């Protein structure tokens, strides 16, 4: 796994735990941060499933890979919090590709931040936390992110030019959205991870689908 991350040019730091409770306390009490956690589902005491449920509220963006001895390793479609199952029977092949896929996705979400500079305040919003940006009157905009709603005294086009990131696209004249936050497209609506939906204008629909297709096609 280390070799593989090396060859992909991905930086990493690995911590290992033998007790699931230690990991849990580090995260809940000492606010340790992890991008990716590998858990054996079948553990003594707390199960992998229960552990991940407890970690999620503290690390909402964490990717969890389960390692299991079951042959049935497909994830249920409505199970969103798990990145992937890896069967122990095919650990060498599948674990490497699962970790590399997760690392690529983490890198894609990246560390870029959008900085709002106003007279008396400065706000930093990580790109990955932005759901969408909405036009708010002629020259103002609102950024809807995991941190809440932030107002910006700039036009949507200005913000779009400043973002300089391919995951942001227009779905309407009044909305820029973050492709990474889109759960799916259905009936001309974009569904977001926070449960909100936004309509996609007819003139943008085909192009939006194409852009999503191109984006994920290039990043998986």
């Amino acid at each position, binding site marked *: 796994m280390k070799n593989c991350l090396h060859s992909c040019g991905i930086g990493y730091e690995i911590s290992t735990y033998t007790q699931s409770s230690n990991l849990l306390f580090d995260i809940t009490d000492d606010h340790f941060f992890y991008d990716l956690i590998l858990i054996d589902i079948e553990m003594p005491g707390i199960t992998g499933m229960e552990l991940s449920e407890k970690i999620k509220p503290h690390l909402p963006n964490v990717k969890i890979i389960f390692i299991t001895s079951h042959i049935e390793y*497909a994830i249920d479609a409505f199970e969103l919090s798990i990145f992937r199952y890896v069967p122990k029977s095919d650990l060498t092949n599948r674990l490497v*590709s699962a970790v590399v896929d997760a690392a690529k996705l983490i890198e894609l979400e990246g560390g870029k931040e959008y900085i709002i500079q106003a007279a008396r305040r400065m706000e930093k919003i990580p790109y990955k936390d932005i759901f969408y940006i909405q036009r708010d009157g002629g020259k103002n905009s609102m950024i809807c992110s995991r941190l809440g709603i932030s107002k910006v005294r700039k036009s949507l086009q200005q913000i779009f030019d400043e973002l300089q990131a391919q995951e942001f696209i227009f779905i309407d004249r009044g909305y820029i959205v973050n492709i990474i936050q889109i759960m799916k497209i*259905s009936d001309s609506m974009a569904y977001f991870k926070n449960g909100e939906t936004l309509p996609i204008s*007819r003139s943008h629909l*085909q192009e939006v689908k194409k852009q999503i*297709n191109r984006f*994920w*096609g290039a990043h998986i």
Partner: protein
Amino acid sequence: MMTWYQILSFFFTNGLRIFLGLYLVITLQQLAGNRKKASVISVCAAAFITVLSCFPIQKFYLTGIEIIFVILIAYYLYAAQPRMSLFLIFFYEIAVALWEFILSAGLGVIFQSDRFLDMRSNGYIAAVWIVRLFMLGIAFLTVKSHRRNENLSPRVIAGVAIAGLLGAVLLSGQNTIPISDDRLTTWIIFSMLILVAILFFNLNRQYKMEKKIMLLEKEKNALLEHDYQTLKNVYAANAKLFHDFQNHIDVVYHYLLKNHTTEAAHYIENLRSPIRDITQTAWVGDEAVDYLINSKIALAASQNIQVGTNIEFPRRTNIQSVDLVAILGNLLDNALEAIENEEDRFRFVNLTIRRINDMLVIKAENGCSAAPTEMNGSLQTSKADKTLHGWGLQSVRAAAERYDGTIETEYSDQIFRAVVTLSFEAVKA
């Protein structure tokens, strides 16, 4: 002689009529083209018609010239079929003229004066403007409903046509202003003709759609039959294996009795290959799809093609295996066919299936030494028999569109890449 404001009014009413007619022709035929140019040219056409109408020329000829204008604009700027454009614009002009007549006569009845029927009178101009305002209103509603992705136009068009017939019939029952019977009968017949035309247009559109669906179904069936045939072959091999089992056991038994272990091992080694072909790897957990992927991988191996897979597939989605077979079958067939005659370093196919949120992303890549040829933005087949080709990607597209998805193809760095995205819904067990 016409006064200046009449000429001005004529210019605007003509302009609106031509512009909206053009809009109708291009929207109903679902065409895309240069809208700005079309608007400018339709203004010029309106000016030309207005100038002509200052001369004593019959209205009939003016309408004819206008129809020709619209057909030419639609043909050159939107590549519209002239026949269809003629059909649409002809009945559009009749409907507009019918309504101008009904409204002017109606106003005449209300104000008890036959001045309204004189085409040069202010009353007639008022009637024409009312019609234009209605037309603008309908156009506005249509544009708005399009934005909301609804299709308003068929219902509105049918409603207007039926109202036109009713109006013409009502006018024939009044005695307030003198209108000749001939004229009334002509208009009633015209309004019936419009209804028939609408019916014909809708039937024709439905027929075309059904034809397209039929072709896609045919393609899908051909694919399924092909896969079924391969499946049958595998089962036949399986049956043969079991049939011969007794004999094989005997042979191995005798080898072992005589201590010929190397021969026995060799014999078993030979036996293993058909068994290996039959054993399946589970890729996505759906039998049909797993079988398809396995058979394509086996085919690739037999042609000395490297296959890389990174497949992750969620359970319990609303994605039908038929659609998945159509997509994967076509993508893999295309990839394998494309590298048939390539040299070794291009002989690879990579299949990636990933679940991203509630979307499934399917990517098929293959080596490709030369860029595929493109025509009108879509890729052209390089195969000699072009008749049946092109339908494969069409059926992938149709399957993808059932899940609000799409397909994109791309060629870069000597790799050909096809990516399909599907949006799925989780299905509770």
